[in-house]
């Protein structure tokens, strides 16, 4: 019935996946190495930022979001922001006890 919509998704070449994989592994190793160096409170922040960058790669390329309808990306961002807001509001209690 609505097969036309699927034709929009183009086929991602194997090479792209391998490049992304290489990038992800490098980021992982960077993250591990950085924790060996004492950065104080920044350690967790940096580890989480690297994790966020890695997830963006997985989401956009592996999970195809780059080529999908924008609705998916917007909804996903909304969900992530919602979760962050809930964590923040919960911490609002604990940080001020």
């Amino acid at each position, binding site marked *: *019935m609505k097969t036309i919509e699927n034709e929009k998704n183009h086929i991602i070449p194997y090479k792209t996946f391998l490049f992304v*994989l290489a990038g992800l592994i490098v980021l992982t190793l960077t993250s591990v190495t950085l924790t060996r160096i004492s950065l104080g409170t920044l350690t967790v922040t940096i*580890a989480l930022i690297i994790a966020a960058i890695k*997830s963006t790669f997985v989401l956009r390329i592996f999970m195809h979001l780059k080529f999908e309808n924008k609705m998916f990306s917007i*909804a996903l961002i909304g969900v992530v922001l919602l*979760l962050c807001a809930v964590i923040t509001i919960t911490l609002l209690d*604990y940080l001020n006890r």
Partner: protein
Amino acid sequence: MSTILVKHRDDLTSKTGMWFFLFTELLLFGGLFIVYSVYRYRNATAFHLAAQELSVFIGTINTIILLISSTTIAMSITAIRKQNKKFAILLLGLTIILGLAFLVNKYFEWGEHFKEHIYPGSSILALRGHGDVLFYGLYFFMTGLHALHIIIGLIFILVIAVSILRNKINSDNYVLLENSGLYWHLVDLIWIFLFPLFYLIT
């Protein structure tokens, strides 16, 4: 009359359903991340020290294993769309093997902890204080739930591989493969955050 209730296939609909399901999964783990952040804030030092006992090496290996498995399942979609059925099945087989390898590593990792009497409800662990109890409680629960997702994902992938073999999934109709791929990537995504939060906060 006989045409009543004929199902029309609509791939975008089923993919939308899968994504919405992933949102639910995200918040399922999200609840645990809330608990994690609260207890880490309240027991920062204990979490810091307890995390040093986890093996960063095994953790890193497992992270890389999952990343590779994510790549192989993503490549299998390309393979099936290029009508390369054998290569697609091979890639899915690889994904399954990597997933199993992850579980085996996890098994040995947990086994080590158990040998040192670190497990939920252990009286020796309880002696080490509240922070350690909470850290390992969260560690076992979150990685356990994650492992459960791996097992479910592996079953999905196995079913998909068989369907490809039987030509039920082919270059025309591969949305189920895409959906189990999405599920598998989500499991990977969760691990991308679990790994630094448990292994790298030293």
